[in-house]
């Protein structure tokens, strides 16, 4: 998974990493000043959260499929639930349906408390 992340320039640009906690696989987005969208709060840019969710979904599919080809996003939809503060964000993806051509992936992101998600996403990918 680390090798896949390293191969994606945009993942390095955001500073995304992965970790395993009790066998469950997460993506990690450490906070940095360059991710801020609203400095008054401060809050992480909504686009960054969306991109982080999409990246987590994509990595989950690559991990699952073991395919050389990168799945192509068709639609990605993000629900913003709370303002994301200047701390580390984590995300976990679940594949809801893995079809022959299309995969449907749900992603959820949180900061300190997994029970208080900051954003969730749903993506459809062409495999």
């Amino acid at each position, binding site marked *: 998974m680390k090798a896949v992340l390293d191969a994606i*320039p945009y993942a*390095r640009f955001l500073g995304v990493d992965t970790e395993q906690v009790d066998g469950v696989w997460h993506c990690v987005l450490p906070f940095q000043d360059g*991710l801020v969208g609203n400095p008054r709060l401060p809050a992480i840019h909504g686009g960054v959260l969306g991109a982080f969710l999409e990246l987590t979904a994509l990595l989950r599919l690559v991990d699952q499929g073991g395919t050389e080809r990168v799945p192509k996003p068709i639609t990605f939809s993000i629900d913003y639930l709370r303002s994301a503060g200047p701390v580390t964000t984590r995300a976990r993806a679940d594949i809801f349906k893995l079809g022959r051509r299309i995969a449907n992936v749900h992603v959820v992101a949180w900061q300190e408390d997994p029970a208080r998600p900051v954003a969730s996403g749903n993506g459809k990918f062409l495999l």
Partner: protein
Amino acid sequence: MGAGSPEPERVPTAEAGALASTSPRRYNPAVSDEPRYALGFMFGPGKPDMVSFTPHAQRLGIQVVETGPCFAVVRLPYRTELIGDPGRKVIFGGAITTLLDHASGLAIACSLEELRAIATIDLRVDYLRAAEPGLDLTGRIDCYRVTRNVAFVRGTAWDRRPDDPFASCMGSFMLGANPAGSPFTRLIPGDGTEQS
């Protein structure tokens, strides 16, 4: 249509009228006919400092191309750092999400008579095709409805021509969601930075 064939009768309906209208619906409070947009003074070509108060927009290299009543056009110059698919050299979809999210915030700020904090409720991006590697990406968002608490936007992103978009999006945004106020007040000369 031949001269002999009768033209089907068209019954004008409110719905047809709404669909025919291409311009976004303006914020039009009952108190005034002509909206006085808070950022109206700066409508026109983008200025370099318009992203300077958004650290991530600055880091991505987003430029404001144009703003006007209820719309914004922004550009993301192509950078190899933003590639999501190393094989195809295509920019990662999430960077396009950021471009459109950012344009949405700006378009909504350009729809308000009084600046308020803007927070994304939801955003959906459809990837119609891959953006062409090496080309700058441009996004235009129109804010087509503002209510007391929520603003609704839609828009597209393209690489070569606006009529050949590679992505489209729809979103809804909460107004006045937090007490910190709008970062856009910084754009107003002599106003805002010490507001909260």
